[in-house]
C-alpha cells in the first residue's frame, strides 16, 4: 500500500488560534490538490509554542462541538485526508495538556497527550501543563500508528512501547528551537534529532515521520528539517531547514514487511524478559540509593 504523506512545516503565530486554524485549512486544501492522504502538523500547531500565561485563552477541548476542532474534523471528511495536528487541550477539570489529535473521516481516532514535559534550560513546560499518562498505538486506514510529541521521543521508552503496541508508523511532532551553531552544515541539535530518528527507523524497522515547526519566538529560531525515515533507517525526506513549506512524499508501506523479513527484530523482541527485568530493577531494593 502506498501512502502520500504531507509534512506541514508551518510557522504558527503565537496565541493566534484563529489565524493558525486558517493556515491549517489552507495547507490542507493545498495538500488535497497534491493528493496527500495524511497531513501532519507540528507540536502546538494551533497555538504557537511558548504560550505561557496564554494557556487558558488558547486551550480547546477535543470535541466535535468545539468550533475550532469541528472545522478540522470537517476538513478530514471533506478532503478525505487524515489530519494530525497539535493544540493545547483543556480537560473538564481545568487541566491543560500539550496534545496531538489524529482525525480521519470526520472522527477523532486518537489524542496523544505529551508524556514528557521538558523543564530545564530554556524549557518551562511543566510550569504550564499537566503530564499525559498514556502511550498507545491506534488503528488507521493505513495501518497501526503511534504519535509522540517532541521530548517524548528524546526518551527511548515511548517509541519502544508504541512499537510493541503494534505501530508500524511512528509520527513525531515537535516545536524544536534551533541551537548548537558550530562549524557543521546543520545545527548541532538538528544533527542529534536526525540521528535519533534514523536510529528508531532502523531499530524498530518502522516508518518514522517527523514534523518540526519553523519561525521565531522571542529570538528562538525553530529549525524545521521535517523528515521521513524508512524501515531500513534511510532518510526519504529531509533537509529543508527554517523555511515554511509543505513537503510531500509517497512511501511504500510494504517496505515494512520486506525489511522485517530480512531483519526480524520485532519477531525476536522479548518484552516478557524486559518486563521481568524492569520489575526487578524497579523493586524497592534496587531503586533506593545505597
Amino acid at each position, binding site marked *: 500500500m502506498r501512502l502520500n504523506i504531507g509534512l506541514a512545516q508551518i510557522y504558527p503565530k*503565537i*496565541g493566534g488560534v484563529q489565524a493558525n486554524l486558517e493556515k491549517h485549512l489552507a495547507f490542507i486544501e493545498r495538500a488535497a490538490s497534491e493528493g496527500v492522504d495524511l497531513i501532519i502538523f507540528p507540536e502546538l500547531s494551533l497555538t504557537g509554542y*511558548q504560550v*505561557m*500565561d*496564554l494557556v487558558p485563552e488558547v486551550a480547546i477541548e477535543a470535541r466535535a462541538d468545539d468550533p475550532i476542532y469541528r472545522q478540522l474534523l470537517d476538513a478530514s471528511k471533506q478532503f478525505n485526508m487524515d489530519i494530525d495536528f497539535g493544540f493545547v487541550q483543556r480537560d473538564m477539570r481545568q487541566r491543560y495538556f500539550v496534545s496531538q489529535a489524529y482525525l480521519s473521516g470526520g472522527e477523532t481516532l486518537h489524542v496523544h497527550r505529551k508524556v514528557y514535559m521538558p523543564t530545564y534550560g530554556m524549557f518551562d513546560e511543566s510550569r504550564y501543563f499537566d503530564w499525559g499518562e498514556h502511550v498507545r498505538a491506534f488503528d488507521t486506514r493505513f495501518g497501526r500508528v503511534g504519535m509522540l510529541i517532541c521530548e517524548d521521543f528524546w526518551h527511548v521508552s515511548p517509541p519502544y512501547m508504541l512499537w510493541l503496541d503494534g505501530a508500524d508508523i511512528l509520527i513525531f511532532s515537535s516545536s524544536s528551537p*534551533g541551537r548548537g*551553531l*558550530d*562549524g*557543521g*552544515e*546543520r*545545527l548541532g541539535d538538528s544533527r542529534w534529532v536526525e540521528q535519533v530518528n534514523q536510529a528508531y527507523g532502523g531499530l524498530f524497522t518502522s516508518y518514522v515521520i517527523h514534523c518540526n515547526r519553523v*519561525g*521565531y*519566538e*522571542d*529570538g528562538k*529560531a525553530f529549525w524545521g528539517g521535517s523528515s521521513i525515515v524508512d524501515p531500513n533507517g534511510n532518510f526519504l525526506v529531509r533537509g529543508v*531547514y*527554517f523555511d515554511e513549506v509543505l513537503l510531500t512524499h509517497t512511501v511504500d508501506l510494504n517496505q515494512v514487511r520486506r525489511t522485517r523479513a530480512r531483519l526480524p527484530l520485532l519477531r525476536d523482541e522479548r518484552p516478557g524478559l524486559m518486563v521481568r527485568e524492569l520489575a526487578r530493577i524497579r523493586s524497592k531494593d534496587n531503586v533506593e540509593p545505597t
Partner: protein
Amino acid sequence: MQASQVRVLHVNGTQNIRDMITERLAINTDVARKMLTGFIRDEVEKAGMKRAVIGLSGGIDSALSAYLSAEVLGAENVLAVRMPYKTSSADSLSDAEAVIEKLGLQNMTVPITEMADALINQFPDMSNLRKGNIMARLRMIVLYDQSAAFGGLVMGTSNKTELLLGYSTIYGDSGVALQPIGDLYKTQVRELAAALGIPASIQQKPPSADLWAGQTDEGELGFTYADVDQVLYLLVDERYTTEEVIAEGFNRAFVESVWRRVKINHFKRTMPNIAKVSRRTIGHDWLYLRNYTGR
C-alpha cells in the same frame, strides 16, 4: 601469548584545549546568516514595521549588523546614522562611510558634540567613563528619535562577549529593540563579517568604543577578545567551573577576574526588579513572550 606480545594502541583523546575551543567556536556562516537575517525580518514585522535604524560606528559589530539588516530588509529600508563626537577618530567616519557606500544605505550624520558638551561642561572634572556614558546615551536618544521619524526599529549591535562582560552603557548602546548578534562571541562576529565581505579596514582595525582618542577595547579591558572568548566559552557554553577552566591551564587571576566581571554586570542584562506586593505581578507571575502582541 605473553603480556608483552599484546599490541596496544594509545588512542590519544587529549587535544590542546585552545585548539579544541577554536574548533568549537568556528561557525557555519551560511547557517548563522540564515538564522540572523530571518530573526531581523521577524522582529521588524512583529513590530509592525519594515525598516530599521542603526548607529554606524565604523566598527565591526555595527557593520555586521548593517550588512545583515540590509540583506533582509533592503538597503533602502535601513537608515545608518553616524554620530561623531569631537574626539571621534576620522577613521570611524570613513569606515562607516565605506559600509554606507558598499550597501547603498540611507544615511545621515548627527554630531553629538554640542548636546554632549552642554552637560559635560557643567562638570569640569568629569571622568572619561562618565563622558563615554553620556555619549552612548545621547546616541540612543538620536536613534530613537530617528526610529520615530523614519519608522524603523532600533537595531542592537552588541555581541555575546561584551554582553557577558557588561562592557556597555546601560540605556546607551544597550538601549535597542533587538540584538541580532548578541549570541555570537567577538571571534564569531569576525568570522561572519569576513564571510559577508565587510571592508578589510574594518575587519583589521583594533576594536574601540572610540569614546576618547586612542582608546581600544582590549587596552581598556586588559585582555584580548581571542583570550577572553576562550574562557567565556568554557564557563558559559560548556558549563565549566572556574576551577575546571584553571585546571585546563588558563591563568587563575585572569579567569577569576573575567568571571567576577560577568557577575557584577549581570544587572545590565536584566530588566529592573519590580517589588512584588500583589498576587500577580509583571515579570514574576504575569508571563508572556515579548513577541506576543495580540495582533
